[in-house]
């Protein structure tokens, strides 16, 4: 019988990603509810020193697969290694972050294992001893509660920025287990030949704690400067509505909404965004929503915790001044 909860750790350039702490913390809560052990699984090259930290966040065991062919991430190598580990250890639940890497890996791995996979979940529960997941569908226009039928491990990914991170306890130590990496070069078909870094230096939307976003009301690409100034002051990412992206004002990667990114920051400041249903779907799980719009009837005000009816070109620079008092 499958037993134990696994949390797949994600690292880049040897540093654990924020979503890793979220997934390990949530994994701890699920393991406790099921009365089972939590095992973190860490893949990479020269990453063994990071294993200890995973214990501080609640892992009972950490399986480390350390091999030069596991850095950088490739779907082929990670799928092969984790599939072997799963087959040898038979965990009951397998979690990872719904990051670009996690979404890719979970999709391929679930097909290889032939198991059910719940993508981009916002909550996990244990009901009558069974693991269930809650996930937005139709970009958040509805939520589905899903169960995993006769399918082990139960696989799911957690939406970044949603699951609470445990306070690290440095007195907790995990048992560290070295995994045998058995990779045939034939299995490694894809390779990363170049990495192009984003120039803005700003945090990426799905990982951001705060987002300042601009829509049609920005009137042109040059005006995003005022949003960027505010964003840089408060450590926010800059997003855009579909209208702004389709107008060519902002890159596609900045689009928030049903055909863009679904985000869940602590603070979302919507500037000159009317609040089309597709946009609301993409940011509706933000904890605090602020809307700044001239039009008092804009639908965005129906979803906003704080609404400012005024010209954003007056309010945003003024807000940039005011926030300095609290930084």
């Amino acid at each position, binding site marked *: 019988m499958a037993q134990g909860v696994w949390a797949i750790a994600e690292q880049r350039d040897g540093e654990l990603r924020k979503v890793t702490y979220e997934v390990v913390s949530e994994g701890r809560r699920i393991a406790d509810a099921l009365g089972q052990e939590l095992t973190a699984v860490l893949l990479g090259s020269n990453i063994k020193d990071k294993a200890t930290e995973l214990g501080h966040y609640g892992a009972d065991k950490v399986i480390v697969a350390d091999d030069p062919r596991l850095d*950088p991430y490739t*779907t082929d190598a990670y799928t092969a290694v984790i599939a072997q580990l799963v087959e040898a250890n038979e965990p009951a639940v397998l979690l990872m972050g719904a990051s670009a890497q996690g979404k890719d890996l979970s*999709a391929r791995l679930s097909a290889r294992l032939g198991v059910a996979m719940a993508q981009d979940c916002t909550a996990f529960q244990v009901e009558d001893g069974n693991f269930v997941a809650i996930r937005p569908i139709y970009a958040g226009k509805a939520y589905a509660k899903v169960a995993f039928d006769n399918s082990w491990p139960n696989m799911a990914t957690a939406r970044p920025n949603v699951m609470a991170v445990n306070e690290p306890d440095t007195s907790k130590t995990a048992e560290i287990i070295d995994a045998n990496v058995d990779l045939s070069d034939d299995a490694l078909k894809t390779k990363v030949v170049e*990495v192009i870094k*984003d120039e803005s230096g700003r945090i990426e939307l799905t990982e951001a704690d705060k987002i300042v976003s601009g829509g049609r009301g920005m009137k042109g690409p040059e005006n995003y400067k005022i949003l960027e100034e505010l964003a840089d002051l408060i450590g926010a990412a800059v997003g855009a509505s579909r209208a702004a992206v389709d107008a060519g004002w902002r890159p*596609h990667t900045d689009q928030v909404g049903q055909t863009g990114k679904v985000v869940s920051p602590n603070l979302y400041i919507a500037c000159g965004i009317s609040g089309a249903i597709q946009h609301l779907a993409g940011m509706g799980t933000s904890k605090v*929503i602020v809307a700044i719009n001239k039009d008092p009837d804009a639908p965005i005000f129906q979803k906003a915790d704080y609404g400012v009816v005024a010209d954003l070109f007056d309010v945003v620079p003024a807000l940039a001044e*005011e926030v300095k*008092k609290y930084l």
Partner: protein
Amino acid sequence: MNIIVCLKQVPDTETQIKIAPDGKSIVEDDIKWIMNPYDEFGVEEALRIKEKFGGEVTVVGLGPKRVTEAIRTALAMGADKGILITDDALEGSDSLATAKALTAAIKDLDYDIIFTGQRGIDDDLGLVGASVAEFLGIPHIALGIKVEIADDQSSVKVHRPVEGQTLVIESPLPVLITAQKGLNEPRYASLPGIMKAKKKPLEEKSLADLGVDASEFGEAARKLKIIELTPPPERKAGKIIEGETPQEKAAELAKLLHEEAKVL
């Protein structure tokens, strides 16, 4: 270059989603069905590759008969032929079963590249592309925003945006690529294109035609079971910030974000 594009139909993005009385599905009356937007990027990219290198574009749709419309749209854009996998036994299938049916239809075709959308904008799972690649035993690259085919047509480089960077990933052919927004601007079907599409071959295949066992498909065979659907958590309209001037409003907003919402 022979290219296959998988596509599905989804409710138009304007659709207000209503949950059906069974609590497990949505009300489908009055829904306007469109080609999944991410699949459209796949169709467009396939056509551009064909225009450059020659070859044939085949679109493979799965679902009820209405999916014919989406296939016809792709044919009108310039695809050469269509296959519709349709069978009552497919109703309610999960991603694994859907991928199995698509694989059965694709495996004997001649292909160099397969495109799927990076996800359907209905279930938002994003599993079918990678699963089809897995079942066919070929590599996949997810979230393609740029596809460069080597001059000797033996490999491809795909730009894949991830958090804070773009990876350029190289793969031998055949490969499956999932299409992301930014890959291209899909063309509109021209009137002559629409006329021509009516004469292009569109074949319907049942599960029996594909030689697969119907009991592995449909609601009963789902591994990911839907327990219930619920509306999203209510968000109530909050405070409208008072103030005589934009400056006063900005000051009040900053204060509330700091003291009340505690996010500054």
